[in-house]
């Protein structure tokens, strides 16, 4: 696996952008300016970015979850349009009608966050089927939490993908919790074994390690593009915040998130690796940090200033044609 400097910088920028986006949203949410429910991706950036850096805008698709901001950013959705959407404003990427839990951008191959746990994997099957039939060489990647792994749709989708040999990568993000319940309680056996039981090649990687995710994803994507059918990756993930912004996290031991931020921060781990290997230097990354901070600052300001959706838009776009 050889990533160019540009690729490394791009990956770092994406991960940092997600982190800043989410950390800032957390603050904004608690101050009461963001409507709806908000699920933050902080801590899991290396997973979305590790795979999406290898996906194309036009032919590759991802299916996301309620925790979808990171997936969007990783897949290249415009950060300012996203922020406006999360504020449910007129110029949001979905015109304010989707919000955080239903944010989508088909132009970027982002099939939507999904407020229905397990909702997206069947849709990803369809994107993979299109790719296969239209011979685009495209790949479809559904992101699936450890909790979602128990939803029947996920099992159905793995079987269907295996039967039809669809070009897919099932990206499981096992962050140890589904809401306030631990995976050790609710997710029996092993996710990797589940995939393998459908004859789907599967590996488990540390989701805080960008390079581990990248490499597993590379193999899986290659297999998919070459007609080898679906693969699965179980990435161990670390959720820095609670289930939603504002969650008091009574199910977690004191200090757990602190420990995660100290020892499993994908950004720190990335920076350590690339500096130790002399691939990037810290100053370059610091420069990116500054740019990203400004971007997020601007995104929030613009989102706040953006107008509310037009009243008539309530009635629009229910159908392409009304008869």
């Amino acid at each position: 696996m050889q990533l160019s400097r540009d690729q490394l910088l791009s990956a770092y920028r994406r991960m940092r952008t997600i982190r800043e986006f989410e950390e800032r949203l957390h603050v904004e949410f608690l101050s009461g300016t963001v409507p709806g429910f908000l699920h933050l991706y902080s801590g899991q950036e290396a997973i979305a970015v590790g795979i999406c850096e290898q996906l194309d805008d036009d032919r590759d698709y991802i299916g996301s979850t309620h925790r979808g901001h990171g997936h969007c950013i990783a897949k290249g959705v415009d950060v300012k349009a996203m922020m406006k959407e999360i504020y449910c404003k007129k110029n949001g990427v979905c015109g304010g009608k989707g919000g955080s839990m239903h944010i989508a951008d088909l132009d970027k191959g982002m099939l939507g966050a999904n407020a229905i746990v397990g909702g997206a994997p069947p849709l990803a099957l369809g994107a993979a089927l299109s790719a296969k039939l239209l011979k685009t060489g495209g790949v479809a990647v559904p992101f699936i939490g450890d909790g979602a792994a128990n939803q029947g749709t996920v099992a159905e989708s793995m079987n269907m993908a295996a039967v039809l040999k669809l070009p897919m990568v099932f990206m499981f993000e096992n962050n140890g919790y589904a809401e306030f319940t631990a995976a050790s309680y609710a997710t029996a056996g092993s996710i990797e074994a589940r995939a393998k039981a459908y004859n789907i090649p599967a590996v488990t990687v540390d989701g805080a390690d960008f390079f581990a995710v990248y490499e597993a994803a590379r193999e899986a994507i290659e297999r998919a593009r070459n007609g080898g059918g679906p693969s699965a990756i179980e990435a161990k993930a670390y959720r820095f915040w609670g289930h939603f912004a504002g969650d008091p996290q009574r199910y977690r031991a004191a200090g757990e998130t602190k420990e995660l931020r100290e020892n499993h921060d994908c950004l720190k781990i990335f920076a350590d690796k690339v500096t130790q290997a002399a691939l990037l230097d810290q100053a370059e990354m610091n420069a990116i940090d500054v740019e990203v901070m400004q971007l997020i600052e601007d995104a929030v300001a613009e989102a706040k200033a953006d107008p509310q959706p037009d009243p008539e838009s309530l009635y629009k776009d229910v159908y392409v044609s009304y008869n």
Partner: protein
Amino acid sequence: MPIKTYREAINEALRQEMEANDRVIIIGEDVAGGAGGSAGGAEAAGGVMGITAGLATKFGRDRVIDTPITESAIIGMAAGAALTGMRPVAELMFADFIGVCLDQIYNQAAKFRYMFGGKARTPLVVRTMIGAGMGAGPQHSQAIYPMLTMIPGLKVIVPSNAYDAKGLLIQAIRDDDPVIFCEHKSLLGDSCEVPDEPYAIPFGQAAITRKGSDLTLVGISRMVKFCNEVADRLQKDGISIEVIDIRTTSPLDAATILESVKKTGRLVVVDEANPMCSVASEIASIAASDAFDYLDAPIKKVTAPHTPVPASPTLEALYLPTPDKIEVVVRDLLEY
């Protein structure tokens, strides 16, 4: 003009649209049949009712795709394919199976365009078999269209005859919105004149199948046949019934119904579904709101009772609206 069955009309619509556009594909359980079988994997069924017969042989298994028994994955896959460039026709074998895949229709396909701020197009068709009359019992006989009609973002089609079945299915496949196409299992063998060439019947346009002036009788799917029969019977007694086949429950052609009711002053709606929150109730409520001044009598519904569909054919016959039951209600109302 050639005579074709409802089944043949559907098959022809599928074949012609598949010929015209290679993005049209069929997805479902045993829509071909025979996959992996010891006979060598040749097309073995063409659907449990033979409706898709011959299509796999003609278009190949890449375009007529047999799936495992996983309706959520089937509908979701079709919806996802529709979102990304294909025009899939998914088969939900029996409409009752909506219970295991509703989410992919209700929360996903139906809402994409709206949630995504108008960017999505989801040219998805879900063909499914509705209705009682074959002794198939409580879990294989339901008329589920009200449950779908209420969902914004869906179009719901209920053809009552072979001619409409072909034209409406062609429209469904060409349409850019998600469409649920409800085929009545007790109509599959019914036949009428059906042109050989492709034609599309626009949605939201009811058909007046009998012109009349004394009472408006609105029917849905198989019930239209019964309504026509009642109109024909009563005509012999000099009673003039106007029969309206709504053809699509969403969009619903309220204008044609209201116009008729304004003329006749009397409305009976016949619906095979259970009574509560039915399309019959919807139509009645529209007339009670928008044709009130023209009404000379209460609005009556003839529907199935608020019970599951019993397996016993004897009870099933009692369950269903029949021409006799409709006639009684119509005659009563005419005397009002």
